């Protein structure tokens, strides 16, 4: 780790203890498949975890949301539009600035304080997932800052962050075409697993070399459900085209299932706000 003069540094070389724990548990293909077939939390394969949503959690931000998807916890806040810094040209469309960050203690392996390549990539994906949903022509030459922080990563962190961000944008009364829902699915040997946990994600990326390639990988799809538009599609792994096409259907269906949950959470937050206002006036 490079020495960071602005922080308190530990010793030069430290190793996570987890590398010493499962030295001889070489996972066999059968075991992986078994673990994925019967999920630890007894969910069906097309079932997403219970969600917990709170809107308006950060008092200092214009809009904010906290979303729990099982054990995955993400907090996101949005601030007032400000002029795009260091820009000479006038841009007719407003911009979104997204920062996606894992808290250092959020993952199995400790993350550094600076954004790493993965986090930068996720920030860009978040930006692209949200841009089609925001009426950017309403605030030309301004940018809206969106910060998402993953406090606990138990899989599907990116899709949870995108949903938190879209709720935070709505909470900040940024004009939008609709709410973005995002779903992650992992695939292992023709098995679709919606909303994977951290362990399931890791299993699907770790493949066993076989003569015939097996379908495996992760797909994240962000959607504007009420307009039936895909705002972001992100796939890694290896699979054939028919498989990808059928997963688009499944992902869209799940998005449509999640959408009312987000809508209800927003509705409740607005009712609460009105109630509070009425009380104050009294």
């Amino acid at each position: 780790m490079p020495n960071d003069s602005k922080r308190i540094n530990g010793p030069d070389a430290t190793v996570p203890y987890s590398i010493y724990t499962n030295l001889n548990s070489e996972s066999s293909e059968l075991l992986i498949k078994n673990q994925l077939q019967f999920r630890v939390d007894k969910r069906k394969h097309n079932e997403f975890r219970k969600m917990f949503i709170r809107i308006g959690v950060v008092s200092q931000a214009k809009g904010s949301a906290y979303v729990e998807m099982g054990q995955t916890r993400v907090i996101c806040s949005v601030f007032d539009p400000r002029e795009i810094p260091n820009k000479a040209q006038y841009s007719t469309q407003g911009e979104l600035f997204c920062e996606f960050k894992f808290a250092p203690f959020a993952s199995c392996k400790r993350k550094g304080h600076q954004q790493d390549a993965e986090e930068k990539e996720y920030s860009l994906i978040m930006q692209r997932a949200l841009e089609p949903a925001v009426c950017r022509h309403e605030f030309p030459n301004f940018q809206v800052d969106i910060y998402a922080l993953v406090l606990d990563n138990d899989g599907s962190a990116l899709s949870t962050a995108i949903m938190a961000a879209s709720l935070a944008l709505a909470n900040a009364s940024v004009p939008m075409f609709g709410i973005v829902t995002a779903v992650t699915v992992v695939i292992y040997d023709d098995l679709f697993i919606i909303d994977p946990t951290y362990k399931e994600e890791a299993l699907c990326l770790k493949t066993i070399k076989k003569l015939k390639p097996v379908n495996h990988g992760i797909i994240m799809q962000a959607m504007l459900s009420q307009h039936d538009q895909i705002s972001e599609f992100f796939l890694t792994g290896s699979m054939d085209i028919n498989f990808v096409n059928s997963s688009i259907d499944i992902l869209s269906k799940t998005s449509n299932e999640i959408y009312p949950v987000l809508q209800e959470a927003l509705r409740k937050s607005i009712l609460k706000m009105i109630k509070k206002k009425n009380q104050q006036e009294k």
Partner: protein
Amino acid sequence: MAEIPLSLAEKTFILHGIDADFRNDGRSRTHYRCMELETKLMDQVHGSARLRIGNTDVLVGVKVEIDTPYPDSPGDGKLEFFVDCSANATPSFEGRGGENLANEISNVLALAYQSPDAMDLTQLSILPHKKCWKLFVDILILECGGNLFDAVAIAVKAALYSTEIPKVKCATLDGGEADIALSDDTYESVKLDTTNFPILVSLYKIGDSCVVDPTSEEEMCSSASIVISVMPNGRISSIVKMGYGSVHPTTLSKTLDMGTKVGIELNNEIISALKREDELGLNREIIGFLR
């Protein structure tokens, strides 16, 4: 990407052309421009390639070094991509202008090669837990004339195809320390197994249809594009959406079908071109990148 100011009339003209499957330069929607590809043009690296497609010019060099493997994947080698957008390519790359684009390209490449189906990193292992090969793939964008993703991916594949890794004569563990001896003969080398290396196909949605290999002008007319990495056997190793627009699920499916078809064809063409170049032998004339 490089901004080219286009008037509304110009955009409409391009759009109508694409609707009629007859583009400004006479191509159909699935046609690529002519490509020039040359490998092994630089002596100081282990593998190199240069690709020119239309006005886009890309140079790729592959360097090989010995490194220690990551503790969580002790039996694998390492592969790293680095993209440099030269300020010569287009004025908007001056200073740190090209940095975002460069990051994006290297990320997409890393994703495309991530699956063990696409690139088997175990072939880069020398001694598990101790030593492995690390491939540095350096990509220099010399000129930017649209469709950077596809151009870079083809050049990378060609460069990796031409890469020669020194042969390891013996690798033993000596009291916990790795002891490695390389072959004395510099011509004795190992080639990478490139059968499954993917290429990228970007499909730009313009109007109601998608086109491959857009020129810079056509890129300006597109609000969304899909970058698909296709392996020679037709499997997909990554998909990324670019641009600020959104797409309908059925459009996405159709686009993916089209992309895979184009990708398989393109892969075949490139492999046969590389084979033809090999047949020319060691004494062929090298044109190089400075013409």
